[in-house]
C-alpha cells in the first residue's frame, strides 16, 4: 500500500501528459482559435434548431436575394435597432421594360432581435421549444443568405446541414482511424509474411488515383436505396481509402517502438502480446493518431462537398453542405444568384477550424 506521502509526491511531481499538452496548446494562438471555432461549430450542429432562424424545409420564393440588415430608419437617420426592409413591388413601372419596380418598403420594417420566437421544434426529438438565437421579432422569415431554388432559407439549411456533414465526417474518420490504427499496429507488431502482404495491400490502395476512384465508387450506390441506407453507403465509400496512409504511419511508429528498451524489457519479463501492444505501444502512437483525426475531419468535409458539387450527395430529405453545393455546378445559376455559393462559407469555416486545431495539437503533442 502506498503511503499518503508518496501519493502526494506523485501528484505534485510529474504533470500528466494531457496536462502538458493542454499547457502547450493554450499558448498557441491558432490552436486556441481553432478549438473555440470547433466548439462553436459543434454546438451549432447539435443545437441546429435553436441557431437556425427559419424552418429549413419551409419553401417560399425561389432564389430570392439575401435580406440586408439595416441600421437606418425610414428617414435615413441612424438607429440602433437592426431591421430588415422587405423588398416589395410598387405600382410604378420601369420606363424601359415596363416591369413593376421593386424596392425596400420603408413603412414596414421587420426588427431583428436575439432570442426571438420562431418555428416550433423539438430539440433531440424531446424538448419542445420555439426560441431561436436570432431572427425577426414579428416572425417574418428573414433570409440572411437568401433562398435556394426551392425558396428555402440557405442560412438555416447551412446550419442544419452541419449536422449531417459533420456526422458523416466524424463517423468516416472514426472508421478510417480505427481500421488504419489496427492494421498498422498488427502489421508492425506481427511482422513477417502478414506484414508483407498487408503492406502490399496498402501499396495498392495508395496507388489508386483517389478522386476518380471515389467517383467510381459513388456510382455503385443504388440510387433507389432509402435515405438512411444511402447515407450508410456514402459513409462506406468515403471510408474506403482513407485508412491506408494512417496505417502506414502507425506501422512505421510501431516498428520503431518495438525496438525501444522498455518494450524489450516487457518482452523479457514475459508480458503477453496484448499487454505490450495496448500498454506500451498504443499509448505512444495515440498522440499521432489524435492529430491525424483532427486533420482528417476537414478532409472528409471537403470530399463530401466536392462530390456534392459534382452531383453526388446525400438524399434530399437530409441536408448536407455537399447537397447544397449541387446547384452551384451551373455557371448560369451562380451568375444570376451568386448567394447560393454561400454554403462554401460553412465548409471553409469548419475546414479552417479543424485544421487550426490540428496544427496546434501537432505542435503540442510533443511536450518533452
Amino acid at each position: 500500500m502506498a503511503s499518503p506521502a508518496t501519493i502526494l509526491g506523485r501528484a505534485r511531481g510529474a504533470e500528466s501528459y494531457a496536462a502538458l499538452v493542454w499547457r502547450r496548446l493554450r499558448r498557441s494562438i491558432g490552436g486556441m482559435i481553432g478549438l473555440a471555432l470547433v466548439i462553436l461549430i459543434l454546438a451549432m450542429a447539435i443545437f441546429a434548431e435553436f441557431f437556425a432562424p427559419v424552418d429549413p424545409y419551409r419553401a417560399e420564393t425561389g432564389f430570392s436575394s439575401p435580406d440586408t440588415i439595416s441600421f437606418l430608419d425610414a428617414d435615413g437617420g441612424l438607429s440602433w435597432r437592426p431591421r430588415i426592409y422587405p423588398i416589395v413591388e410598387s405600382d410604378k413601372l420601369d420606363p424601359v421594360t415596363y416591369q413593376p419596380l421593386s424596392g425596400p418598403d420603408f413603412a414596414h420594417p421587420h426588427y431583428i432581435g436575439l432570442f426571438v420566437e420562431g418555428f416550433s421544434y423539438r430539440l433531440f426529438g424531446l424538448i419542445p421549444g420555439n426560441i431561436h438565437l436570432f431572427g425577426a421579432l414579428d416572425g417574418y422569415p428573414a433570409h440572411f443568405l437568401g433562398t435556394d431554388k426551392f425558396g428555402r432559407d440557405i442560412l438555416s439549411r447551412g446550419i442544419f446541414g452541419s449536422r449531417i456533414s459533420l456526422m458523416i465526417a466524424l463517423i468516416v474518420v472514426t472508421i478510417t482511424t480505427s481500421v488504419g490504427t489496427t492494421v498498422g499496429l498488427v502489421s508492425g507488431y506481427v511482422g513477417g509474411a502478414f506484414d508483407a502482404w498487408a503492406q502490399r495491400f496498402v501499396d495498392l490502395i495508395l496507388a489508386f488515383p483517389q478522386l476518380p476512384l471515389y467517383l467510381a465508387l459513388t456510382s455503385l450506390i443504388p440510387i433507389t436505396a432509402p435515405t438512411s441506407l444511402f447515407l450508410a453507403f456514402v459513409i462506406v465509400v468515403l471510408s474506403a481509402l482513407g485508412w491506408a496512409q494512417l496505417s502506414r504511419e502507425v506501422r512505421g511508429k510501431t516498428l520503431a517502438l518495438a525496438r525501444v528498451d522498455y518494450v524489450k524489457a516487457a518482452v523479457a519479463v514475459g508480458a503477453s502480446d496484448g499487454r505490450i501492444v495496448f500498454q506500451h505501444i498504443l499509448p505512444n502512437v495515440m498522440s499521432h493518431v489524435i492529430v491525424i483525426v483532427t486533420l482528417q475531419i476537414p478532409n472528409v468535409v471537403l470530399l463530401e462537398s466536392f462530390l456534392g458539387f459534382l452531383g453526388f450527395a446525400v438524399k434530399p430529405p437530409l441536408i448536407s453542405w455537399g447537397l447544397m453545393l449541387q446547384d452551384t455546378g451551373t455557371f448560369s445559376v451562380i451568375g444570376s444568384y451568386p448567394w447560393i455559393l454561400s454554403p462554401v462559407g460553412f465548409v471553409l469555416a469548419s475546414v479552417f477550424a479543424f485544421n487550426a486545431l490540428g496544427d496546434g495539437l501537432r505542435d503540442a503533442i510533443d511536450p518533452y
Partner: protein
Amino acid sequence: MLRFLARRILAMIPVLFVLSLVTFVIIKAPPGDYGDYIRAQLMNQGGASFEKAEAEANVYRRQHGLLDPVPIQYLHWVGGIVTRGDFGDSFYYNQPVAHIVAQRLPATLMLALTCHFLASLIGISLGIVAATQQYRWTDTVLSAVAFLGTTIPRFLAAIIILYILVFRLSAVEVGSFFSVEYGGAPWSIAKFMDLVRHVWPVVAIATFGGLAYNMRVVRGNLLDTLNMQYVETARAKGLSESGAVLRHALPNALHPLVMYQGVVLPYMLTGEIETAIIFALPTVGPAIVQSMAVGDVNVTATFMLILAATLMVGNIIADVMLALLDPRVRLQTAIA
C-alpha cells in the same frame, strides 16, 4: 542501382494489374452501359420509341462486345493492352483511347509539372527565408501563408476565382487553353502569353497548396540542421551567413523534401484534376468525370491506370533522386 531500379519497376506490374482489375470491376458493377446512353440520346434527340431505341442500342452493344460477361470484356481490354499496346476504343469520342490519352495526358502532366516546379522553387526559397528569420515577423507572415495554402480547399478556391473571372471581370473564354484566334497557330510568344492567360488560375491554385507544403518541410528541417555543429563550424571558419546556410545547412535539409516528393506528386496531380474539372480544361480530370457519366468504360479505366502508373513512376524517381543525393540511402539500398 540498376538492380534496384529494375526491381522497383517489376514490382509495379502486379500492382497495376490488380488495380486495373479492381477499377474495371468497379466501373462495370453499377447497372447501365454506353448502350443506355445511346438509347437515351435516340429517345430524347431523335424522338425514337423505347423499343426502337433499345433495339439500336442492342445492335451497338453486340458490335462493341458490351453484351459479353464482364470477365471476358476485361480480358479483351487487358489482352489488347498487353499484346498490342491497344487501350481499346472510346465509345463516346468514337476513336481509339490512345488518341484521347495522347491529347489530354501531356497537357495534364505539363500543368502538374509546372505547378510542381513552381511549388518547389518558391516553397524552398520561402522555407529558407522563414527558417533564417525564425520568430521574426517574416516568419510569422510566411507561417500564416503556409497555413492558408494547406487549408484553402482547392476546388472552392477554383469556384470562387471562376465566379470572379466570369461574372465580375467578364472573361469570355474559360474552359480552353487558347483563345480562338490561336487555335491552329504555330507556337509564338503571343500564343504562350495567351496560354498563360488561360491556365494561370489552375496553376496558381495547385501551386499555392504545394508551395505551402514544401515551405513547411524546408523550414522544419532547416531549423534542425541550422543547429548542427558543422554549420557552427562553417560560420566559425569565416563563411558568410548565406554561404553557411546555402552550402552547409540546406543540402542536408533538402533530402527529407526529396523523400517527400513521392507524397507531393499525387497531391499536385489531384490539385490539377480538381481545378481542371471546375475550369473544364481539356485535360485528364474532366475526361474521367465525363466518361464515367456516359459509361465509356475503356476511357475511364485507361486513365485510372495511367494516373496510377504516373504516381508510381513518380515515387520511383523520388527514391532514385534520394539515393543519388544521399550516400547513406545508396548504401542501404545496395545492401538490401
